[in-house]
Each structure stands twice: as structure tokens, then as C-alpha cells.
């Protein structure tokens, strides 16, 4: 009981650091994909390295937070929900890392005509993720303000989905010069990028239900 204030202070710092890491990971993902599309391979590799490091750090922090929550019985009524929220947020950076690794390993070929759309797809997907992190941050201090921020996440997720469909249609209907294998390959990359927005949407939904739960 006596150490509770010190522990809670540490947990607050850890949560902030965790979100910082994920935000930086998101920015590096965007930069990494754009570098790949522009052919800046060395810079892309640097982005991938940073994202891998950040994912590892995020994992270490989340383990620390989990440990503190269980050992010191922090927020016993909501601990599982909050830890679940943090795990789901971790899914975003996991997806980001997987995505960049796939770019590195599979080296997909992007025709010039699709590059612009793909870059926009990444930008929309990243915007969705970028907006969910401030919402998760504000949940801890002012849960009433969370809803204002979630609308953007849902909007960008929907736009990502629309653009992904457009890209897939372009690939399969308007690019006869591409081999089927190349089309399918690019379709998978479109899906991977879409999953970042999808993961953000999952976090957004969790946040909105948590706000209701905490206000009850």
C-alpha cells in the first residue's frame, strides 16, 4: 500500500513511453514505405531497423506494465480491459514491423501507375493509426474526450478500405501487362497496409466500450 504512489507514477511514465514508441513506429512505417516506393533502399532499411527496435522496446514496456498491474493490483476492476487495450495497441506496431519486413524480404514490384495510389493508401492507413494513439492517451486523463478523437480513426479506416479496393481493381482490371503472380503479390501488400488501419479500428472500438464501462 505504501509504495502504491511510486508504482502508479512509474506505470504512468511507462504508458506514456509506450505510446511514444508506437507513434514513432507509425511515422517510421510511413517513411519506410515511401522510401521503398522511391527506391531509397538504404533509407528504407534504416526505417525497418528503427521499427524493429521500437517494437522490441514496446514489448518490453508492456511486459513491465503488465507486471506492475498484477503485482500491485492496479485498477483491479479494469486491469484486464486496460491491459487488453495496450496489447491491441501493440498489434499496430507488430503489423507495422511485419509489413516493413515483408517489403524487405519479398521486394514487391510496383508499376509507376500504382505507386501514387499505394503511397496514399499508406498515408491514410497511417493517419488512422496516428489518430488512435492520442485517443488512447486521453482515455487515461479525460475519458469524456475520447469519442471526439475516435471519429477520425473510423473515417480514415473507411477511406483506406475504399482506396484499397480501388487499387485492387486497378491491378486486376487495368494492368494487363502485369503477371498474375505480380498482381496477387501487390494485392497482398495492399491487404497488409490495410491491416494497420484495421488494427487501429479495433483499438478505437475497444476504447469506446471502455469509456462506457468506466463511466458506469
Amino acid at each position: 500500500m505504501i509504495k502504491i504512489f511510486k508504482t502508479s507514477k512509474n506505470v504512468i511514465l511507462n504508458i506514456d513511453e509506450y505510446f511514444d514508441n508506437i507513434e514513432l513506429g507509425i511515422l517510421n512505417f510511413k517513411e519506410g514505405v515511401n522510401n521503398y516506393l522511391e527506391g531509397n533502399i538504404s533509407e528504407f532499411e534504416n526505417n525497418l531497423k528503427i521499427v524493429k527496435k521500437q517494437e522490441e522496446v514496446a514489448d518490453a514496456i508492456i511486459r513491465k506494465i503488465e507486471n506492475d498491474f498484477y503485482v500491485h493490483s492496479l485498477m483491479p476492476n479494469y486491469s484486464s480491459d486496460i491491459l487488453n487495450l495496450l496489447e491491441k495497441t501493440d498489434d499496430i506496431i507488430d503489423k507495422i514491423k511485419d509489413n516493413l519486413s515483408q517489403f524487405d524480404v519479398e521486394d514487391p514490384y510496383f508499376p509507376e501507375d500504382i505507386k501514387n495510389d499505394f503511397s496514399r493508401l499508406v498515408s491514410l492507413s497511417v493517419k488512422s493509426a496516428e489518430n488512435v494513439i492520442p485517443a488512447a492517451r486521453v482515455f487515461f486523463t479525460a475519458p469524456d474526450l475520447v469519442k471526439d478523437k475516435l471519429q477520425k480513426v473510423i473515417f480514415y479506416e473507411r477511406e483506406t478500405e475504399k482506396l484499397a479496393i480501388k487499387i485492387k481493381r486497378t491491378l486486376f482490371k487495368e494492368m494487363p501487362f502485369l503477371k498474375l503472380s505480380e498482381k496477387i503479390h501487390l494485392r497482398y501488400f495492399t491487404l497488409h497496409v490495410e491491416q494497420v488501419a484495421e488494427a487501429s479500428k479495433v483499438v478505437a472500438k475497444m476504447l469506446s466500450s471502455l469509456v462506457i464501462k468506466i463511466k458506469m
Partner: protein
Amino acid sequence: MFFFFLSSGLFLGWSLGANDAANIFGSAVGSRMVKFSVAVVVASIFVVLGAVLQGSGASITLGKLGSVDAIGGAFTVALCAGITVFWMTRLKLPVSTSQAIIGAIIGWNFYSGNTTDMTVLGKIVSTWVAGPILGAIFAILMYKLLKFFLAKSKIHLIKLDAYLKYALLIIGGFGAFSLGANNVANVVGVFIPSVPDIQLDFGFFIFDGVQLLFLIGGISIAMGIVTYSKKVMMTVGNDLMKLSAEAALVIVLAHAMVLFIFSSSSLSNAIQSIGLPAIPLVPVSSSQAIVGAIMGIGLLKGGRGIKFNVLGRISLGWITTPIIAGVVSFMSLFFMDNVFKLQVYNTTKTALKSIKSDFNNLPKPVDIPVNVNLFQPFLYTVIILLIIVIIVLALKLTSKKLKSKDEESSDISRKYKAQEAFLKTELAKANTENAELEKEIDFKRKEQMSIALNIIQKNRFLEKLRAKIDKIIDKSDSDQVELSKLKKLIVENLSIDKDRQRFNIYINELNRDFYFRLLNRYPNLTENEQRLCSLVRLNLSSKDMASILNISTKSVEVNRHRLRKKMHLKREDNLTELISKL
């Protein structure tokens, strides 16, 4: 012998501690906000302190209702109250120790022929109603205040959790103090008239017999908390208050305040000193105060979670518990008196009292004014009015809250729609800008193609012209010097061409990205080879390329071959396809 008779009271105290500690620490321990061991230590210490320091107030009122003047009677009364509580709990009927002891005392009054003071009884019954109502009012006010403070302060949820843990412990301590102060009268109140006249000197302080009795009563409650409350806290406590930590805190505080108000003689005196009526110091039911507070929170949240059947069961308990306890007590007293020949009331005192009452009942002269007691009707009217006001307020609050929620949600949806529309226009704007840029690129590409074609056509024309001049030179009759000059001019024009320069600038500008990617992949390509690649990318034939580069077709073929070698292409690889993919 006194301690043997006291055992029934101690049993009552033990069961009270085991059951009612859950009202104070149930939610905190059940939800693991506070450790059970910490809760037990705090509750035990404060319950004993409350019993010793402030337990006398409620006991005096019980004494006024019926002073059980024989130890056998006190034992039977406490035992009957205990049995009633135990039996009704087994039958899952709502029961309160306070109500059981009152019923048992009234049963003793009936058996011993003592008159029951209706004013005191009225006071006690009114507090049973007032307890839950006050609990609800306190809970509503404090919950509102706490929510307002939390909304303003924007404390981090983790920090808030730490504050709440300490607050639950402190308020739990206050709750335990109030429980000890208010409910110790139930446990040992009936034994006060029979307590031996002793004094214990501890040097710093002296305990008289009554204080010792309260200390023992407090310890018996504490023993109940230590030995049996864990199970109740983990089950009943958790079920009763599946609420947020903030709500649990407010509920425990409201409950503690209700118990404190009805047991603090100093508070009652303070209120009396400012001209207000004194607060009746009566043991009230801890569980009912808690249920009242929960109902208050439920009302505040728009009526959700209010179990009206619980309210009905409590009201039923107000009637059934005292009646059952009274009947059991009357029968047991008869049994003890006639079978065990145990003295259950002081006969001499009662005889004196009956003579006195006979004397008082003698017909009186007409001119003596009749003393009409208006206190009870006034009290009941106030209580009924209070209930009506609370119900009306609750209904109003509910409808107002629903209305404001509707307004709020429509406001939010309007805001979201506006936000969505704004974002859509932004996106549309970005899309239009992109389309314009793409159009511009397309136009430049076309222009580049037209320049290339122009150069090719012009060069073809000049080549033809040069061939014709050659033919004319071959004929001897022509002006050879003039024609040679003309041919030289054409050849110069073929190699220094402004159009070609312009084309090269265009190619360099448009293919900057392409050159970048090309060099990234094949870093050892020369400038001429890069230019050749850009022409391959335009899908031009070798002849056209030769014309643009002002070299022979053969040279273009040789250059292409060298390029393939540098790019490590196999025989089956297509150079044009590879370059266009870059």
C-alpha cells in the same frame, strides 16, 4: 456468571461483525482494491474505538424503550434477537440486528408488563425509514461532488486508482468507527442495567462497567470481522456493490455518515445548541443504509439498476423482523421464566410500576388539561413529505437526464457529420490536386514524345536532303563548291540541333526519378547509357534512337548490347520490359 449470560450478546456481536463488515470493506476487498488483512486490522481497531468512545448514545435510547433489568431477561432478549437474525438469514429474508433487538425488547416489555414508550418507538421506527433515505441523499450529493471534482481535476486513471485505494481504507475506518458506535447498542445495550458496578484503572484512563461492556461488545464485533467476514466480503459484499470504485467509496461514506449521525451525541448536542430538534440516537441497520446509498446512486444514473423489489423487501423487514423477534422473545421469556425458573425481569420494580400506573389510570378531575403528544404525527408527516419530495425529485432528475442525454447525443452526431463532411471535402480537394498533377505529367510526356518525333522527322528530311546533294555533286556540271558548303551546313545542323538540346533537357527533367532508381540498381552506367535507357523506356526503335542521338543505327545496337552486358541480362531477358518496370 455475568459473562455466561453475556455470551448471547457476544454471539450477536460476532454475527454482526461477520455480516456488516462486508458493507464497509466488501467492495474494496472483493474487487482487490484493499487487501483483506489490511481491511481486517483497520476495521477491527476502529470498530472497537467506535464502540468504546461513542457507543453510549444509541444504548440510552434502547434503555428508554425498555430497560431489561434482569440478567436472565437480557440474556434471553439478546439470544432471541440472535436466533431471529440467524433463522431469517437462513430463510433468506431481509433482516437487521437493530430491528431484531427492538422487537425482542418490546417482547420483553409485553412479558414483564412494562409499558412501551410510544414516543421512543416512533423515534426508532422513523430512523429505520430515515436511514436508507438519508443514505440515498448523502450518496447522491457526494457522488455528484466527486464526479465534478474528478472532471475538473483530470487525474490520470492510474493515479486516481492509488488515491481511491487510500480513500477506501480511510473511509472504511470511519465506517467501522460508526458501525461500532451505532451497532454496539444492539449487542450489549440490553445488558447495561445488569452490568456489575466495577471500575478498571489503567493509569492513563479509567473504564467503568458500561465502558467495559462496550469494549467487550466491540471486541466481539471485531472477532466476527477477523474470523468470518472474509467469506461474506468475497460473496455478499461483491454482489451488493458491483459498482465503480468511486461509487463504492461514496456509498461507504454515505453509510458511515448515516450511522455516525444516529450515534453521535456530540453532533446531536451541537444541533440542539443551534435551536434544531435533537437527532434521535438509535441503532440503525447498516445493510439498509448501504442499500439506500446504492439506490441513491442508481437514481442518479437514471434509475438503472434500482431493484424495487429490494426496497419492498426492506419495508417488509421493518415490520416482520420486530414482530418475529418480539414473538420469539415473549415465548422464550415465558419458557425461561417457567421452565428454568430464571428471573427475566425485576418483579419488585415492575410491581411498583404497575401500582404507579394503576394510580395514574384513576379517573381524573375534568379540569386537568389533556396532554396530547403531537411529536409522532408531526414526525410521520415530515417523513412522508420527505419521501414524496425525493420520489418527485428522482423522477424529475431522471427525465431531465434522459433529455439532456438525447440532446448531447444529437449534438455529437451533428458534430461528427460536420467533421466527416469537412474531411471528405479535404480528401476530394487532395484528389483533384493529384489528378491535375497527373494530367500535367501526362501532358509533359506527350510533349516529350512529340519533340522526339519532330526531331526524327526533321533528321530524316535532312538526311534525304544530304543524299540528294550528294547525287548533284556527283554530276560534274553543277557548282561543286556551293553544294559542298550547303552539305556542310546540313551536316552541322544535323549534329547541333536546338530541338535535341531541348529534348535532352526535357528527358533529364522528367526522368530524374527514373535515373535515380536506375543508378540505385546499376550504379556504373555512363551518362550516354542512361540516356539510351530513357529512350528505351519511351519504346522507340533503334533507328529512331539513332536519329535522336545523332549516331548510326549500328552504334545504337552496339550500345544496347553493351548496356545489356553491364546490366547482366540473360539472352531471354527483355531490356525494354525491364527498364519500363523500373
